[in-house]
């Protein structure tokens, strides 16, 4: 392995950015491909697929055998609001492989009693996201219903290109939210990425069912990154 390739790969992994190490198994030459880099032909198609699935493997292309080692950051879920839905969502998300953190400045809601074993921030989203910024391997679900708490986090999620952005509330509530976000400087394209009403339409009624719908929509958005799938992030 080329030492420079190893250094580059580790730097990308530390920064929570996706990268693939492409090794020609015939002559041992290797290089790093970052997400969004253009690679032509069959090899390029295989690389694009590996970025989506996160699966590593050998591929035949251009008469050669390449090994693609896909290094995707661990996806995670940031929830704004320590509410009933979040109580159900926390264990489900962890089981599904999406570590979850919760931000809610209302210290009566954000208590360890209500959220055992959950990374909980009883603080304003502004302060928490300053310390640990969002990124494109983070999903954000805003479920407080309170613009004072949700709006800043939603704008930050759109700016950080989070792979999923969802917001709880009816269509009417969301229409008002859209106006506020536009006033905060979000573009119309950005605002169109918000999933609202939140969650896949499975007819969810209880908080736990809404949690399932949010988790399902998060997974769909993650697995269809870069694809035009109905119901997923564009």
């Amino acid at each position: 392995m080329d030492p420079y390739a190893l250094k580059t790969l580790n730097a990308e992994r530390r920064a929570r950015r996706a990268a693939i190490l492409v090794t020609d198994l015939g002559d041992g030459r290797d290089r790093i491909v970052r997400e969004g880099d253009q690679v032509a032909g069959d090899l390029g198609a295989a690389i694009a697929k590996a970025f989506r699935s996160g699966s590593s493997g050998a591929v035949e292309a251009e008469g050669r055998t390449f090994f693609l080692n896909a290094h995707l950051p661990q996806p995670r879920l940031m929830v704004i609001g320590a509410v009933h839905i979040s109580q159900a969502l926390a264990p489900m998300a962890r089981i599904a492989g999406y570590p979850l953190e919760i931000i809610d400045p209302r210290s009566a809601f954000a208590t360890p009693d209500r959220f055992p074993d959950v990374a909980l921030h009883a603080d304003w989203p502004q302060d928490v996201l300053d310390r640990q910024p969002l990124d494109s391997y983070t999903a954000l679900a805003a479920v407080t219903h309170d613009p004072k708490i949700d709006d800043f986090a939603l704008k930050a999620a759109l700016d950080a290109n989070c792979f999923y952005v969802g917001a709880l509330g009816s269509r009417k509530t969301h229409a008002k939210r859209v106006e506020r976000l536009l006033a905060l400087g979000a573009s119309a394209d950005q605002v169109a990425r918000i999933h609202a009403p939140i969650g896949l339409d499975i007819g969810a009624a209880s908080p736990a069912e809404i949690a399932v719908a949010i988790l399902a929509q998060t997974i769909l958005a993650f697995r269809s990154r870069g694809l035009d799938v109905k119901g997923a992030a564009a």
Partner: protein
Amino acid sequence: MSDSIYLDEARDPLIIAEAWMKDGKDVAIATVVETWGSAPRPVGSHLVIDADGNFHGSVSGGCVEGAVVTEAVDVIGSGKARMLEFGVADETAWQVGLSCGGRIKVYVERLG
């Protein structure tokens, strides 16, 4: 499944390989490139080895690491990458195998 979103720097084989390199050590990197049947570690898993036979990571959960380390020390010496294959199906080629019945292919290369 990991609960942390950050690299476990103390245990991450590729981070350790980079640190060894910075310390001036000769290093080999072994990578699982193909698996058949029930294999203990997924494709892409790494074992990193130095010239003294110290190693970190895993390509099989312990079944064939000893043999990979021996080969890796040779690869560090020669600089020539090798493709190793382990499994119950080819016991004539290797004395060690995978008790789970799977087969794995491991690519061993020198760093630099």
